[in-house]
């Protein structure tokens, strides 16, 4: 202990620029109402892998993603995307929010939502042309929703809504995909369709990070995991980080503690 303290060096924040993984999170702390939802989390996500962020309800998994993306303001810490700031790498980052975070009663059709993914290409007044139409169609086909393109989004099932959200992200054609609980409350067919798309993205060399809570499918779906409960508990390849000890620390008899859901606290 004493010996290790001697080795401590404080590096300047500028050095962060040398880290150029798709997403590097440093010292991230987020508090809602002076109660930390995420405390001092460091994480480096490896390119070309599917990483699951695992932990019990209220463990701050979604909050970590939202803080990295600047949707909530962290108390301390920062995130770098591809070695630079988020604002310089927005074209390479796609985000799939929790399905329940929006009002599906909004007057829009499936195609309208997927076309939102093309905003950074189109800009304010860019004409929506044939090629854009094709991109929307291709994204819908990848998630198996091509027959629903004219459907009002409020009339879709939960699984279909989730696929529409994924299609919107696919239309962004990003290198890093951040998904918040993509498998929550969806049917088995949708779950299979989504994981198929995620694995295809990986084989194209893209990086996928998904918040996930179903422990039984972790080994099947993910290459890497980040196990957390407010603090990071372990991270790395599933084989080494997804251990009974890590889960014990994360869940350890505290499953009922999930009442303090940060998503709800935010709303």
């Amino acid at each position, binding site marked *: 202990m004493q010996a290790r303290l001697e080795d401590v060096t*404080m590096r300047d924040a500028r050095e962060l620029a040398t880290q150029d993984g798709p997403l590097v999170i440093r010292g991230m702390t987020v508090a809602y109402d*002076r*109660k930390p939802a995420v405390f001092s989390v460091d994480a480096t996500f490896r390119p070309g892998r599917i990483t699951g962020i695992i932990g019990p309800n209220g463990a701050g998994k979604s909050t970590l993603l939202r803080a990295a993306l600047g949707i909530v303001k962290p*108390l*301390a810490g920062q995130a770098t995307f591809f070695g630079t700031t988020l604002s310089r790498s927005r074209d390479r980052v796609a985000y799939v929010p929790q399905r329940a975070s929006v009002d599906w009663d909004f007057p829009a059709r499936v195609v309208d939502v997927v076309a939102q993914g093309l905003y950074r290409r189109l800009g304010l007044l860019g004409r929506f042309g044939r090629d854009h139409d094709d991109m929307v169609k291709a994204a819908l086909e990848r998630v198996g929703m091509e027959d629903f393109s004219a459907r009002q989004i409020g009339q879709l099932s939960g699984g279909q809504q989730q696929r529409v959200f994924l299609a919107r992200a696919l239309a962004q054609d990003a290198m890093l995909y951040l998904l918040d609980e993509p498998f929550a409350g969806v049917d088995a067919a949708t779950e299979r369709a989504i994981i198929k798309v995620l694995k295809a993205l990986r084989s194209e060399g893209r990086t996928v990070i998904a918040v996930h809570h179903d422990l039984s499918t972790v080994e099947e779906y993910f290459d890497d995991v980040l196990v957390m409960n407010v603090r990071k508990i372990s991270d790395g390849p599933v084989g080494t980080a997804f251990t009974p000890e890590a889960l014990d620390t994360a869940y350890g008899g505290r499953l009922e503690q999930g009442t303090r859901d940060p998503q709800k606290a935010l709303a």
Partner: protein
Amino acid sequence: MLRDALTFQLGYNATLVTVAAVLLGIAAGVTGTFLFLRKRALVSDAIAHATLPGIGLAFIALTLSGLDGRHLPGLLAGSAITAMSGLFAVQWLSSRTRLSEDAAIGAVLSAYFSLGIVLLTVIQTMSTGQQAGLESFLLGSTAGMLLSDAILIALGGLLVVALVFLFRRPMSLVSFDPGFASTSGVRLDRIDLTMMGLVLGVTVVGLKVVGLILIVALLIIPPVTARLWTNRVELVVVLSGAFGGIAAWLGASLSASAPDLPTGPLIVLVSFCAFAVSMAFAPRRGLLSSFVRHRRFQTGVHLRQGLLALAQGQPIYEPLTIRLLKARGFARADGMPTREGTIRAARAFRDEKRWEVARATPELELAAALYDGLTQIEDVLTTDQIAEIDRRMGPPEAVQ
């Protein structure tokens, strides 16, 4: 003049008006608390605006049947009827269509108000040979109020306060925890209806004093002000009633002390002053204390994170953390920990480890939930519990 007004020395009528206003203020503050805690404060705005067509219709009906159209009880009865229909319209629109309650409130209040304005212009053209003076219901007017009217308002205010007292238990239960209330046998819809009935009562009673546009302020501002000071429902109710009563007393007195000072806006502004002071200085929820507490918490978190990083030999990236460590003398200019810093880091690290053990210990689970990244475990657990934790952690080799 103002002192005379405040001490009820301005004659019998003015005194009675002030008393009526105070009772109204108390009734509104108390009733509004339940409405506010139920998160439906602005439903009262729809109810208030929906009184206008009722006043107009009542005037027309009274005049057509040969009575004095300005008969206050008649006008108030009419206003209550359309206000109730406005309330039902809001509930119907928000439950039967896809419109949300806020859109329903806005639509109902503006449509009813518009209809009321149409009726007022109809009345202006009716040849009754006298000024109807119904415009005074828009912003209230206590000038030249009839003695009988003042008595009516005072009695009405008293009645609402009595009814609130009667229904205080189920209403607190419903506004505090509707889910629990319904499982414990309280009829949610009935209590909600009672609550809305009381709001309607306050509105109708307040029409003449404050006017229908601003009555909603009496129902909202005192409860919000009270809420800034306390978390206890029963205290919020009492404080809110007190704030409402005092604001009404000061406002009505100020208004009586000089001409051209309308009662309604003055009561609202006095009420708002109390709110503004509370918003600035209230403990916990006030701006000042929020700011101080946030800064203190942020500093604490940064220091803790920095010390933990020092203890584990991890690099620190956050400039603010580094600045704070240096300012406290925990780190030297070159970023190396000082002697003090090393000790503090080791302590923070031990504390963090103890929390970790506490979390994994079923019987300490409740205490472990108090973790906020800042609280020392010594503040939460007894010495015996900590000794037990240290025993589980093994010998304190590196610590100290």
